[in-house]
């Protein structure tokens, strides 16, 4: 129950409307008990007496009650509609907010579909439950109880019969509840898995297509949706037991009332009229009892949905400002941009294996440090520490001597501009994608950034220039083009610190060279950390750090390292180039020259 109770504050904020909804639900359902009484009165009274004048009042009553019922029905739905529709999107925005500020490491541990299914399917389940489930769950037992009380007043034995009937009902509920809850949990989790699989099959479509593995993926998906089918069928089977019991029990109770009642008439402790009244009332009670089955199933699904919702809301935010929150736009102080890695350790939360170990680095303001290392040596992790996408697990990263964990997260991210290995563009215009790095800049600045990253030419050729929609919902660009736009976003607005993770891997050497030089020329004051695979990049850096298994194993200028570090030489391909050149006719040239 707890996950549902946690929605109380939302309920309380609209409690007035909600109580009105409950009252109208009760009214609409309760009226059903009254109408048979009046029609009975009409038949027995005015019609039997053939008294037309005595007819008008009760007929007016029937009409008024009929209209009242229709109005109650209409009012209940009309009132609840905007409230629950708003709740659904409020809850979604909370989920979204929580996730937007959840650290990348935690994001990575969630399947994307599990987040999506919570935000969509679970919340629509909750909306339906709050719109219909709760009002009926509250009023239905009330009607059953009122009915039982009336029966008891008519004749205590009849009340007793209803109570006896409650025993097998409760027993069934107990058996049913646990199993149904398990099935419901599995079902909703599977919805998440389905969403994941669908998303992956579309995002990985090129790979599936190029290996001709679409049938394989379809088979895999079939298995999963077959699994879902089985769970849903299991739910239907549980439903079938429960619902048929709930159909059977009240009718058996009615039969018992007739039998016991007749015996009572013979024994003359009751009258035929009482028996008829009791049967009529039990008839009205049948509908709510039958409905209990549906309501309980709905409640259990809503409970699962709520539990799944709170699992996300309860995610701990581990990278925050000092006060445990994350301010969107904290004040940004003035910094020189001196960057230090001070005895930094890093391991992911779910493993003890250190990705970075006792790492020390120092970059002076305006200097460029290239990070070089083999695949898996921890370069990307190192880069992610600077904008606090991850926080160190030991030591500290410092900007101008201040531990960045003491600064507001978004102040750090304001100081630090990043370009990722996999360029991420959003579904919006080129201009907006680029200007995100420095909101509020004008077109000139955007063009300048595009020029630095050698993207100006192709952007000019795009159908609508800067206003061309790109990203998933827009024009598809080549890998190199996307990289250059993402890089332009990083360099716009003269960032204090620039972190570039292999930003030009999909660009030809010539262009790369132009970009590198432009960067140095136009951003002389930006402290730059650049992950590089190519000698040309590290040759331009003020210093190069060689990373191996999470440690800095060599530090120096490109030329120094070529002399002193065999690993660096290997990483830069020095040895093999010499060997490879043998077959070719032209000689080898280098920018450095130190290697020779």
């Amino acid at each position, binding site marked *: 129950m707890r996950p549902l109770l946690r929605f109380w504050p939302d309920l309380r904020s609209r409690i007035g409307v909600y109580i009105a909804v409950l009252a109208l639900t009760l009214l609409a359902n309760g009226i059903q008990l009254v109408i048979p009484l009046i029609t009975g009165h009409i*038949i027995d009274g005015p*019609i039997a007496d053939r008294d037309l004048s005595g007819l008008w009042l009760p*007929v007016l009553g029937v009409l008024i009650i*009929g209209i009242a019922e*229709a109005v109650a029905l*209409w009012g209940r739905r*009309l009132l609840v*509609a905007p409230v629950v*529709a708003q709740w659904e*999107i409020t809850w979604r925005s909370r989920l*979204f907010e929580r*996730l*937007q*500020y959840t650290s*990348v490491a935690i994001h990575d541990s969630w*399947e994307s579909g599990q*987040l*999506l299914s919570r935000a*969509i399917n679970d919340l629509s389940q909750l909306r339906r439950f709050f719109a219909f489930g709760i009002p009926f769950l509250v009023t239905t037992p009330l009607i059953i109880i009122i009915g039982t009380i009336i029966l008891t007043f008519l004749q205590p034995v009849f009340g007793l019969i209803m109570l006896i009937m409650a025993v097998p009902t409760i027993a069934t509920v107990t058996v049913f509840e646990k199993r149904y809850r398990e099935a419901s949990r599995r079902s909703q989790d599977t919805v998440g898995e389905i*969403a994941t699989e*669908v*998303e992956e099959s*579309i*995002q990985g479509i090129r790979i599936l297509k*190029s*290996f*001709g593995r679409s049938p394989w993926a379809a088979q895999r998906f*079939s298995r999963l949706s077959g699994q879902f089918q089985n769970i849903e*069928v299991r739910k*239907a089977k549980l439903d079938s037991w429960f619902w*048929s019991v709930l159909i*059977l029990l009240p*009718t058996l109770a009615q*039969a018992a009332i*007739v039998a016991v009642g007749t015996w009572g008439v013979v024994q003359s402790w009751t009258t035929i009229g009482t*028996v008829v009244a009791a049967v009529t009332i039990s008839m009205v009670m049948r509908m709510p009892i039958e409905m209990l089955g549906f309501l309980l199933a709905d409640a259990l699904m809503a409970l699962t949905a709520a539990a799944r919702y709170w699992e996300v809301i309860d995610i701990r935010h581990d990278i925050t400002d000092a006060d445990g929150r994350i301010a969107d736009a904290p004040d940004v102080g003035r910094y020189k941009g001196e960057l230090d890695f001070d005895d930094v350790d890093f391991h992911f939360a779910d*493993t003890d*294996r250190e990705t970075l170990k006792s790492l020390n680095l120092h970059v002076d303001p305006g200097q460029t440090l290239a990070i070089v290392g*083999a*695949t*898996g040596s921890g370069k990307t992790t190192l880069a992610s520490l600077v904008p606090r*996408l991850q926080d160190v697990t030991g030591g500290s990263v410092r900007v101008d001597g201040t531990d960045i964990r003491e600064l507001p997260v978004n102040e750090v*991210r304001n100081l630090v*501009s990043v370009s990722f*290995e996999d360029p991420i563009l959003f579904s919006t215009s080129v201009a907006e994608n680029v200007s995100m790095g420095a909101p509020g800049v004008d077109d000139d600045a955007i063009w300048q950034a595009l020029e630095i990253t050698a993207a100006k030419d*192709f952007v000019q050729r795009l159908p609508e220039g800067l206003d061309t929609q790109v990203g*998933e*919902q827009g024009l598809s660009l080549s*890998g*190199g083009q996307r990289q250059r736009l993402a890089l332009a*976003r990083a360099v716009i607005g003269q960032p204090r610190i620039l972190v570039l993770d292999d930003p030009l*891997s999909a660009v030809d050497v*010539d262009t790369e060279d132009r970009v590198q030089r432009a960067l140095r020329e136009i951003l002389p004051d930006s402290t730059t950390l650049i992950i590089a695979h190519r*000698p040309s990049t590290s*040759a331009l850096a003020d210093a190069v750090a060689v990373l191996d298994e999470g440690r800095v194993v060599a530090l120096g200028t*490109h030329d120094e390292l070529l002399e002193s570090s065999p690993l660096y030489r290997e990483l830069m*391909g020095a040895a093999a*180039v010499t060997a490879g050149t043998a077959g*070719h006719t032209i000689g080898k*040239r280098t920018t450095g020259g130190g290697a020779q």
Partner: protein
Amino acid sequence: MSLPRLDEDAVEQLPPDIAKKARALLLSLVRPHLAMAIFLLVIVVLTALFLVIGPIFIADALDKGVPQAVDGDPGPLIWSVTAFVLSAIASAVLAFASTRLVGITAQKVVYQLRSRLFTHIQRLDLGYHERSTSGRLVSRQTSDMESVQQFLTYSLFDTALALFEMAFIAVTLIVLDVPLALVVFLGFIPLFFITKSAHSSQRNAYRRTRTSIAKVIVHFVETMGGIRAVQAYRRQPDRRGTLKDEDTLYRDANTDALRGVAWFAGWTRLVGNVTQTVIIIVGAWLVIEDWTQIGVLAAFILYLRRFYGPLDELVQAFNLYQSASAALEKMAAVLDTDPEVVAPTSPKPLPAHTSGQSANASDATSAREWAQAPSGRSIDLTHVRFSYGDGPDVLPRFDLRIPAGEIVALVGATGAGKSTLAKLVTRFYDPSEGRVTIDEVDLRDLDDAQLRSSVVMVTQESFLFAGTIADNIRIGNPDAGDEEVLAAATAVGLDPYIRNLPDGYETDVKKRGGRLSSGQRQLVSFARVFLANPDIVVLDEATAHLDIPSERLVQKALATVLEGRTAIIIAHRLSTVEIADRVLVMDSGRIIEDGAPDELVSGAGKFAQLHKAWRDSLV
């Protein structure tokens, strides 16, 4: 009700006859279950029958049984009560059966629909996927599917039941008294108009909910997928704003739909209740005028209530139907899109391999699975021209022949058309003009399975699917045994990294400790190629994220396996040229140089320049 104008994307635009297509889709889904549907119909009829006659037994017990039992003859009472209990048991059994069967059948239908949609989306050409967003297609399989499932599970049966129940009661009413029955049926005239107006307004509202929730999903998927950039660039407030805008549209559509239900349900009930009043008045008048019996009127009034009872269920069902059909329309629109790259109706086989160029038994690491390696195949592009739709030519008309076993390096600046050429050879796109053939067979005549086992492309995008590392490598060949997976991983230098992972090859890539760097992910892509064992390999920037030693290792492995195969390699790092037999230089969609590497390097053309720049970039 004023509808906000929806700015629908071109892909989201629904064709005008979509409602018809959605109905056809539903019908085609239900048709295979016709026998079951008929059986369910029998159950519906029986259930409705018991619903109508059950109360007759109890009324009989009360009217006749009880007085007679009091008079000392329990026979009729016992009979009525027994009949009532039996009918109750029958109802319960029928409910039991119908709940199960409906559940099972509905799930079968949903399963079919899911699979059909999934398969179709996979069949759609790359062009469609590049125009469309993953979130939108995900919404078809999640939110829209939920809507359809709700309708099938909860409404279809109940609708039929409600209709039959009303029909039986209607018959009873006619039998009881024709004029009174006519008054009841008069009530259907306003109901008809109410339903008609609700139909169009609700359909509109539900269409809007489907369209707007899809946009919410698109935004959600994009934000979560790009969370690194969202956080690093502090986009949260902006993203929040967009979500709010999209969600507000959804909320308004939903509110309108729910309010529409309120009006519909309210009016329906009002008509029912007013008819009831009219019946009492008319009935009373008929009784008083002696045209009708009192008992008949009493029965009439009792039944009338039950007659309008199922209307609520019908209203509910009607709305679930509207929602589901709006969802089905969206799905029908996807299913209705034909891929531009179509499978041949009568595929031609590739000719058998001519020579048994069973290469490279020498290299131990990779030799095993390549032992029966087929030779390469020739590739011909004849009079090929390519443009996206009616756009400008990306590749102006050209001819190109790549003989079997040749390794071609494709070189040029970004945007020169290299990737487009690769996509033509792998038939991700069909040429706008001309033909692409391998071993003289037009790609358009090749069965997809054969094409894909013969031609494989690796791009710089190294996507991992949920599952273990071994599963991911097996995408190259799902039938590969553990040994082969291991051999492939070893060949490309991935093995040492995998051994470091908590569960080795069985490590779940999306879970605990499964993080792979982008370089390692690329090695996974390469391992896939090793397992796939194709005749033609196309590598599009496939080594871009690798450090130089890893790249070299991959190339060394490639050099061995590519022996005898045809290969097209696109790379900015010209180290690939070392294993190439031939270099093609592209510029603005044209092949401007074509020749052996040594020849071009020593020349004075573009390639010589590029090669020099590349050389200069090295140590």
